């Protein structure tokens, strides 16, 4: 076991230990901390109904919660077919299988234990062995106007649709074969503390104890060998003020931590290959978002400026500081039909074209890094579009999403149809299609285009 892994596991154990110690203390002192004796806690609502319902209007004494619900456990069994994986390796016709479990247990008033994870195999009939992942496991404690969440958790920020410049705290696994894009999110060990002000405002502070990067489809570029370099100093911090309510919802945020997306740097050679290190450098990100509804339209703006380690823009192997803005409008057409159009803008500070680097190896690596990080051009413009529709009392749902760049030829489309056969069975089928020039992020993913189908059994 490497030192890096040991440190990682040690820190994870520390935070889990603290979290469960708190849970244990509260459980063992439940009587002393009972709602009756704690006026602050008495103000907190029940998360799961535990009302006595002894009034004259009680209609049924039957408890309709299932045994699994009583334990706080739910889950699903999933099987699917993907015509390609997301690993850029031309492996086709994959049978996927997985078991997903969620524990959502209210330990006592104001204290919840939550865990979410899965066991999966993305090539069940092939050589790949099963693996598992704990997406989240944390305790959440509420006391008066304060919330405390300790443990591995997903922190999702931003009011734009899917493209969120301010969402930089916890990673995604873009290689996971799932029809639901939101399931790509992964948690990170963290302490999150929030204080609410009135009904609509809150301030949140986050201490990320660990760092895990985004998992991206590998760029299988001939002549390049990639190695990861995860930073040893994991500590990261963030703060956010959020206002949700009134005419405009908005937030401002600041994050000081590590870039979820790697910079590429040459570290040497191995035979004829260049060794490329995927480095996760320090960034400081200040962001804001706004959203409002006018008539049948919802308007949203989300923007962030990222200050990278290469503040002068002189290092070819560290991305430059940049601005990322998403502006969108969502329209509701009625009858369960809606659409979202978003414009995306990125501007690179102190831009220098990596394709003008004289050294061939350096040029290749710097250009690939710039391409993966949207820094090949000084300014980049893009558009995303999504439309959704439901039929048959929400048993049949269709979603079509697409995105493209304006300066270069490249696009992605993702149609998806979901049918709920009954309350336990759901079938999904769709397509992920990428096309574009080799100097676009879409062109890089050409090998990952795939048709997919999945059946889920919920329990």
């Amino acid at each position, binding site marked *: 076991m490497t030192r890096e892994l040991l440190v990682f596991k040690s820190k994870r154990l520390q935070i889990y230990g603290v979290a469960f110690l708190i849970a244990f203390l509260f459980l063992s002192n439940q009587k002393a901390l009972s709602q009756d004796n704690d006026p602050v806690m008495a*103000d907190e*609502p029940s*998360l*799961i*109904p535990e*009302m006595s*319902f002894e*009034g004259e*209007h*009680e*209609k*049924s004494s039957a408890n*309709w*919660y299932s045994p699994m*619900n009583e334990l706080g456990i*739910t889950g*699903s069994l999933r099987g699917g077919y993907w015509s390609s994986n997301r690993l850029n390796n031309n492996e086709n016709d994959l049978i996927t299988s997985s078991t997903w479990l969620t524990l959502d247990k209210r330990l006592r008033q104001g204290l*919840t234990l*939550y865990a979410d994870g899965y066991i999966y195999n993305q090539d069940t009939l092939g050589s790949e062995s099963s693996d598992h992942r704990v997406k989240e496991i944390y305790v*959440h404690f*509420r006391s008066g106007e304060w*919330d405390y969440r300790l443990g591995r958790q*997903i922190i*999702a920020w931003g*009011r734009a*649709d899917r493209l969120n410049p301010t969402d930089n705290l916890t990673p995604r696994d873009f290689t996971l074969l799932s029809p639901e894009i*939101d399931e790509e*999110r992964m948690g990170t060990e963290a302490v999150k503390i929030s204080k*609410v002000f009135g009904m*609509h405002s*809150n301030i949140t502070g986050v201490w990320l104890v660990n760092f895990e990067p985004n998992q991206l489809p590998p760029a299988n570029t001939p002549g390049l060998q990639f190695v990861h370099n995860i930073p040893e100093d994991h500590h990261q911090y963030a703060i956010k003020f959020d206002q*949700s309510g009134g005419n405009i*919802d908005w937030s401002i945020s600041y994050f000081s931590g590590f870039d979820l997306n790697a910079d590429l740097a040459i570290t040497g050679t191995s035979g004829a290959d260049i060794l490329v290190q995927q480095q996760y450098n320090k960034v400081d990100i200040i962001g804001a978002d706004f*959203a409002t*509804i006018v*008539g*049948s*339209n*919802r308007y949203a703006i989300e923007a962030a400026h990222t200050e990278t380690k290469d503040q002068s823009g002189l290092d070819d192997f560290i991305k430059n500081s940049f601005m990322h803005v998403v502006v969108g409008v*969502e329209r*509701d*057409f*009625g*009858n*369960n039909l*809606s659409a*979202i159009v978003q414009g995306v803008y990125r501007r690179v500070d102190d831009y220098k074209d990596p394709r003008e680097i004289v050294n061939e190896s350096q040029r290749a690596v710097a250009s690939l890094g710039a391409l993966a990080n949207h820094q090949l051009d000084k300014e980049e413009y893009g558009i995303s579009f*999504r439309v*959704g529709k*439901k039929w048959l*009392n*929400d*048993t049949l749902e269709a*979603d079509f999403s697409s995105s493209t760049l304006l300066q270069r030829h490249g696009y992605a489309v993702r149609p998806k149809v979901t049918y*709920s056969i*009954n*309350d*336990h069975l759901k079938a999904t089928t769709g397509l992920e299609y990428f096309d574009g020039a080799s100097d676009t992020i879409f062109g890089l993913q050409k090998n990952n285009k795939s048709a997919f189908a999945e059946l889920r059994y*919920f*329990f």
Partner: protein
Amino acid sequence: MKINATTFAFNATFLALGAIFCLTPLASFAQSAAEIMEKNFVITKVTDSESESTFILRNKSGKERVRKTFGTTKLQKNGIDNMRMTRFIEPTDVRGVVSLLIEQSEKDDDIWLYLPSMKKVRRLVSSNKRDSFVGTDFSYGDVIGHKVQDWDHTIAGEELIDGFECYLIESTPKNKTTANNTGYSKRVSWIQKEAYVTRKAEMYNLSGALYKQMSFKDLQLIEPDKNRWAAMELRATNVISGHSTIVKVDKLKVNVGVKDSYFTKRYMESE
């Protein structure tokens, strides 16, 4: 996306929908249709409530889907607008979905939705009232109630429903916006005399064809000092598709001091 907007506030809302009306006896000749509808609209609102409900969604061939919810309501300080929170408990694929509806009589309502998969609360476009809730046959407009002032009302007659004498009120939208936002060209309501409770309702689509039929059963006085009533069983049938929805209020407590903290983003985001 608004496609998710169908997962909204229900049980409490349906209470409001099925809730009953003022018991103050008034001679029928002394009242206009609008006055009857005003009474019908206003007295559906309880001070606050906590409830558990079951939604049975049944298609034309009889196949059923079942939703279990926990909900709270609370009247705002103006005594007119409600706040409604609904948390889905079952089935698994909708467990943890929370909707929050903040009624605003002077402007569009606020609708918030939390989807566990997204880990975010989203404010939804709420001007459109015709979308269905969680795939039920009740529209968003049916659930929050149709604002009386947006419709022209006439007394079309009197009929006996379930043994109760009822006014038969026809309501037509005052303008195209109301018609388009609700999806209805006409509503017909059977309002029980003296109690001002809706016993039955019919909705006609924009083509003028009968679209939905609703009935409200097991009406109970749930807040006696304010004459607030509720239907413990509500049924809506889409006569075009043959799909129907039955809402059963399993448990209900009224005027129990529901905290404001239920109606916040903070509560919605709590797993």
